């Protein structure tokens, strides 16, 4: 099977972790790893893996349009707004890992195959990848969902500069994914950065206010959704099963990373990148 040629734009934590995952995929081949500075840990890692590198940002692709079929954009929301039309003109498939929300929202456990018809898909956010499948299960089984709130806590070390500058976009993009896939009336997303040493594992909590909570209906659907996520994110686990606390449904997941670039505490990198790889592989399979 011919591998799909992919380029990674953005040499920070997300881009570098993505590179390691892409190299392992039987369906993908990373043909260019692109950043702005050759002297960065991400570039060094790419070099050590024997991947072609460039410090020319988007120009690396406009100057070598044949270098790839698909571009992962792991820069920032503002940068993606600029990159999206350029990549569209070049006819590239785009998987956007920033919260720019330009393309179709993609959460593989929920809508993987229906995303194939789009050329630009948005991977929401790390917290969105962790919480949306849970909100989806709530949406499928509960009546009259007034409100869903999702809180993610991640290790400070795992949040690079673009993540930190994009907190507002993180919130609005996560909220719109939750609303879209659960049908709730209102949604709220919260992100905490915790600097504890040793680093904390990524955790996500979902609270839901529904008319008559029905946990018996929720549990089997939730289990199914969670095992679907586990197919592409092996470290995704339910740590507090659905419980009624203070009149609301609460449940909690922990995401342990595979430890590709940052150690396993950085489940936030893992979950959004695993989701992006799952999407890219789906494009690759569909191409052949």
């Amino acid at each position, binding site marked *: 099977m011919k591998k799909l040629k992919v380029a990674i734009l953005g040499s920070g934590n997300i881009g570098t972790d993505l590179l390691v995952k892409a190299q392992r995929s039987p369906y993908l081949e990373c043909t260019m790893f692109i950043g702005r500075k050759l002297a960065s840990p991400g570039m060094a890692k790419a070099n050590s893996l024997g991947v072609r590198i460039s410090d020319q940002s988007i120009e690396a692709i406009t100057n070598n349009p044949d270098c790839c079929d698909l571009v992962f954009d792991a820069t920032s929301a503002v940068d993606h707004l600029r990159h999206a039309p350029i990549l569209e003109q070049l006819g590239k498939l785009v998987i956007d890992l920033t919260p720019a929300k330009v393309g179709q929202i993609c959460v593989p456990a929920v809508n993987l195959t229906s995303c194939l018809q789009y050329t630009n898909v948005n991977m929401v956010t790390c917290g969105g990848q962790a919480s949306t499948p849970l909100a989806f299960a709530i949406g499928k089984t509960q009546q009259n969902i007034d409100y869903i*709130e999702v*809180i993610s806590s991640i290790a400070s070390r795992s949040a690079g500069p673009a993540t930190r500058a994009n*907190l507002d976009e993180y919130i609005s993009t996560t909220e719109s994914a939750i609303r879209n896939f659960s049908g709730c009336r209102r949604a709220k997303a*919260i992100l905490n*950065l915790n*600097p*504890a*040493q040793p680093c904390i594992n990524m955790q996500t*909590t979902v609270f839901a206010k529904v008319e008559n909570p029905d946990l018996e209906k929720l549990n089997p659907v939730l289990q199914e959704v969670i095992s679907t996520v586990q197919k592409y994110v092996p470290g995704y686990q339910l740590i507090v099963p659905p419980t009624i*606390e203070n009149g609301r449904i609460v449940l909690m997941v922990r995401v342990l990373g595979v430890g590709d670039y940052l150690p396993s505490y950085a489940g936030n990198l893992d979950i959004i990148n695993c989701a992006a790889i799952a999407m890219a592989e789906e494009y690759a399979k569909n191409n052949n």
Partner: protein
Amino acid sequence: MRKVIINDPTLRDGSHAIRHQLTAEQIALYCSAADKAGVPIVEVGHGNGAGASSLQLGESLLSDEVMLSIARNHLKTSKLGIHIIPGFATIERDLSKAIDLGVDVIRVASHCTEADITERHIGYARRRGKEVYGVLMMTHMASKEVLAEEALKMESYGAEGIMLMDSAGAYLPSDVSEKIGVLVNKLNIPVGFHAHNNLGLSIANSLAALEAGAIMLDGCARGFGAGAGNAPIEVLVAVLQKIGYDTGIDLYSILDAADLAEKKILKEIPSIQSTSVVSGLAGVFSGFSIHVNRVAQSYAVDPRDIFFELGRRQVVAGQEDIIIEVASELAAKRGV
């Protein structure tokens, strides 16, 4: 006489103590009383600031919009302030609206090691011509060197002063002197301190901050605030008057405001409950108390065990969901 600027977060930090259930009447009455006393800044909102009403932290009775509009109508000379934490509140949804409603002072807060998340919010509020301060929370968790670095970042983003918060009430006066002293030395902007009373040191720590060069302090009516409460503003004003600092606040009027708050707003006068002592020792955010007590009861575990476990995990304000996880773990261990 040396000047001290007092910020009064009675109607913000105090929200924690009454599960964010401030009423319109309470806001109106207290704003008028504080305004009459000449309090420079009155901070209003949800306990965790603008846009923080949530299941995680507790939902406000009134929307931010309603709270700020009422406060605006009842403040003539005092400035109206808000506390705002990126990660909870966004510029578009919360900050721009608050500024449209007439807020004068914006205090942009982050956990003590995460100053860079405040850059956009500080920049935006400055561009809108507002008075903007940077706030570092849970500062007992970082060394003086780290705090100085983080404060310098906020200064570079445009903050016009830096507040250090002892969010867990964990400081001794010597800790305050050391940390405030370094900031005063390294920054070109004023430094302030926000005390909590878990270990009974809120006034002593506030004085230590002034002696180390701080010129801004936070105080709440009767100490009305999260957990064991804050420095009581009426005591602070009295003590500062006795020492000879100029707060610009009229003593009788602030005593009246505190009496009014006690009668009209407080469910109980903040006292140092056993769980607050433990919270201070464990270095856990004071605002957790109310949630820890509730969850401890529903899982039948000792709230003190929850606090020490939360301290061991170094949780920060905003991670209230972890209380449930810890309680369920403790309950499971005990075989409940």
